[in-house]
């Protein structure tokens, strides 16, 4: 489908996909419960910081960090890998391929349509964060918030494109979700989900800087908790978008080779 037609169809797709997201509200709430790890880590690290600050993190900074982590995770997560794996294995992908819209656009639209549901959880959490840590813990420069928006889009794209790349492995493997499990094991360790990346020893941090995980979660959290000035934030977002472009290339190759196999062997 041409981009023009896709854009024209998007409002309807978003509207119907939002209805679908609403229909799955119970599943969504259960999923939210599985993402409360930052709140547990908040309790843990606050206890540690009650004795003395850890690096630049006192109790207030840990509170700001982990509440932000929770919010960013809510707004940037992607389920494309599981969805594609299911649809390829059960032949549902055929139904998508028969429609004059690229399946990856429809997956993306379904993710965007679920955003209001996620905001329902994220906005109260942001209000709590603001009340607990105070506005002074947050960046006051509007430009930083503009950069934060770009980092949120980049974080979502990294998650989504990784999901698509792994999902495309279902065209070749019996099941690709195990690959996603491996990705998540690394994500938990190297994204800033369980602890701020700056607390890692510098040698390990250097390695983490060259992996995509930090840019999928930690970077927006760091920007919104005031870890960077404008120049620093811009530089990190530029690196993040480098990963976005890399993953876009990988996802495109994975889709094209996968769909070629699907067209050769069926599903």
């Amino acid at each position, binding site marked *: 489908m041409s981009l023009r037609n896709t854009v024209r169809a998007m409002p309807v797709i978003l509207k119907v996909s939002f209805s*679908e997201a609403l*229909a*799955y509200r119970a599943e969504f709430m259960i999923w939210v419960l599985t993402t409360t790890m930052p709140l547990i880590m908040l309790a843990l690290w606050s206890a540690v910081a009650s004795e003395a600050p850890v690096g630049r993190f006192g109790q207030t900074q840990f509170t700001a960090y982990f509440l932000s982590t929770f919010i960013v995770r809510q707004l940037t997560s992607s389920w494309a890998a599981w969805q594609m794996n299911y649809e390829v294995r059960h032949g549902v992908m*055929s139904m998508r*391929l028969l429609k004059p819209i690229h399946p990856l656009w429809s997956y993306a639209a379904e993710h965007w349509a679920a955003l209001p549901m996620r905001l329902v959880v994220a906005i109260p959490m942001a209000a709590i964060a603001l009340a607990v840590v105070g506005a002074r813990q947050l960046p006051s420069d509007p430009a930083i918030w503009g950069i934060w928006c770009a980092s949120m889009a980049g974080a979502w794209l990294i998650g989504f494109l990784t999901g698509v790349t792994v999902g495309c492995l279902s065209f070749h493997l019996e099941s690709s979700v195990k690959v996603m499990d491996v990705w998540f094991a690394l994500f938990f360790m190297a994204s800033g989900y369980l602890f701020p990346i700056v607390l890692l020893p510098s040698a390990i941090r250097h390695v983490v800087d060259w992996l995509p995980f930090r840019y999928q979660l930690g970077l927006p959290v760091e920007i919104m908790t005031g870890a960077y000035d404008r120049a620093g934030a811009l530089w990190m977002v530029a690196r993040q978008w480098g990963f976005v472009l890399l993953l876009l290339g990988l996802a495109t190759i994975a889709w094209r080779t996968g769909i070629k196999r699907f*067209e050769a062997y069926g599903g």
Partner: protein
Amino acid sequence: MLPMISVSDLHKHYRVHNRPPGVMAALKSLVHRDYKEVRAVDGITFSVEPGERVGFLGPNGAGKTTTLKVLSGLLHPTRGQVRVGGFTPKDRRDAFLSTITLVMGQKQQLMWDLPPSETFELNRGIYDISRSRFNETIAELSSWLELGSLVSKPTRQLSLGERMKCELAAALIHRPSVLFLDEPTIGLDVSMQSTIRAFIKQYNERYGATLILTSHYMDDVTALCPRVVVVDRGKLSYDGGLEELVTRIRPEKRVMLRLDRDVDASAWEGFGKVVSTEGRSVVLQVPNEQASAIITRALDAFPVEDLTIENAPLEEVMSELFSRSRAAAEEGDT
């Protein structure tokens, strides 16, 4: 006039991993795999004119669904030429996808937890249908399929037949001119099958749509398809009129007689082959050219209350056609 669908020397081959059962075989397959080539479609040629209704028949594994998937662009042919509505399906151009629909009885496009009306609306957006045309089409399809309040119930709460009616409506919202229907009546009760058949015929007549139907229910074929294409093991074994197929494979009539009293089975000697006798009813199988003479003799000789003459059941005709083509293939192999 150019045919709506033309298929020339179509081949679709798969390479399938062949592994015997057992742990040793599983371990061996880690280092060495045996593959065999499966010829799902093996050199099929046919064409379909605009507005034609064609039954695409064959036993399980004959290559019917594979062919429909190639025609709808889901699968790429290994070899051969395929054109549908002037398009090459494997390119899957938007204009092509807006021209066709593929309904698979065992797969659904309706969103499971939402009412069908939401899927209709989604398709309106995807196919870029104006609101007025959409409303007009929905009204028409709803009246033909008697959808009523079904469209506003969640799909998961609909019965199989109700789902299929909504599935058909969702697949036809963009008014496709080519319909590929892969067992659309599978699992439905007799009354629902009949509703679906009537609807398909109505759509074909209203819009002049071309349709290819696969079904294991011969009633579907008899009601909808004046022409049938029969495939077996990926090869075409018949392409022509349904009547001619029956006459060619079974050049006989079934004569069913009901008498006003019991008659001994031996009395029917010389009246053709006795298929069955039950109480006062008897079913005879007689050659086409002798049918009228034998019936006249039977009416003279027995107290006949009721008389019915039919062709051999299509199921039997198909079964015989398949066994003949298999025997011919085995002969060719040896």
